[in-house]
């Protein structure tokens, strides 16, 4: 009676000696060439094969492919929406947020008026650089202070005040009654 090693050696020796033979080499060759021709005419989707080649059950593979397409579509749609919104925001007026404190404090009301003033024309025309805004506010400030000085000057001089009032009345009279 043989021991296990002996049996193992004997069986592997027989298997080694018995080389498997292709049943019909010519038919085999033809089948392979046919498959290659088929691959040539219908190359398929190499990317999908690469991504989902590990799934062997047909319907699961189809579900995965469909789900991935849906996810990609939703993702692309969301991205396009986000980009569109960013584009719209970029086109809107950007008010300077770093005005110097003293200008900012004194011109809050003026700025509010400017900001809320309805503007006609294309939105892109509303882009005002911070530097220009500062200049506008400075000149407005100067104008206001000169106006105040002028009022004081007029009030201090009665003759000048009377002259100006006469001139204003005269101008009023010249207006037509419509």
């Amino acid at each position, binding site marked *: *009676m*043989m021991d*296990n*090693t002996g*049996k*193992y050696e*004997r*069986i*592997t020796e*027989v*298997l*080694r*000696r*018995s*080389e*498997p*033979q*292709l*049943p019909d*080499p010519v038919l*085999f*060759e033809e*089948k*392979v*060439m046919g*498959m*290659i021709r088929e*691959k040539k005419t219908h190359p398929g989707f190499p990317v999908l094969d690469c991504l989902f080649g590990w799934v*062997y059950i047909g319907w699961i593979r189809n579900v995965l492919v469909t789900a991935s397409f849906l996810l990609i579509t939703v993702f692309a749609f969301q991205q396009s929406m986000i980009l569109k919104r960013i584009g719209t925001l970029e086109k809107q007026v950007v008010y300077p947020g770093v005005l110097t404190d003293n200008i900012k404090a004194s011109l809050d009301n003026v700025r509010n008026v400017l900001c809320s003033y309805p503007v006609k024309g294309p939105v892109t025309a509303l882009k005002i650089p911070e530097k220009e805004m500062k200049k506008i506010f400075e000149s407005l400030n100067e104008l206001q202070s000169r106006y105040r000085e002028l009022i004081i000057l007029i009030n201090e001089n009665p003759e000048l005040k009377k002259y100006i009032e006469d001139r204003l009345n005269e101008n009023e009279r010249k207006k037509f009654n419509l």
Partner: protein
Amino acid sequence: MILVERSIIEECRKGDFRNFRQVVAAAGPIAFSIALRMTGDEATASDIAQETMVTVWEKIEKISSPEAFKTWLCRITVNKCYDYFRKNRSNPEFNPDEKSWRLISDTVSGTDHRELDNTGISIIVRQLTANLSPKQKAVFVLSDLDELTREEISEITGMSMKNIKASLYHARKKIGEMLEKYLK
């Protein structure tokens, strides 16, 4: 050993497949042999060999050198067998078949040196390797049946020497247990 003429492989690598039939004629039987010894089913082995040859046609341009062709072919075949085992994971439980074990018993105890046909090989391989994992099957076939070196097996399977040694040890042990259980 050069399986296919170097010039033919070079031609195929350059995209000229006029002589690809010669590659199929030379490489097909090797792929079939490995597949049959691993799967123990003639029809499956034939399918795997065909798929292997198509993959060879598709990827022969990527082969590093004509000398590496045989190792590369074996690697593709073994991987195709792994794919087959993965697809058919839900194999029915192993049922020892009396007829099959009688054949194995006759083969072991017989004194004649007849070679087995594909059916005989399939029956014996199926019974002996029923409890082996795909990797153990690959190592058993390549090492004990095809008599490849550990380096070649490592190149084909991508396993380390240590893993090959361990897999071979377990494969031999499991086959030994089967032989002990079913053979007097």
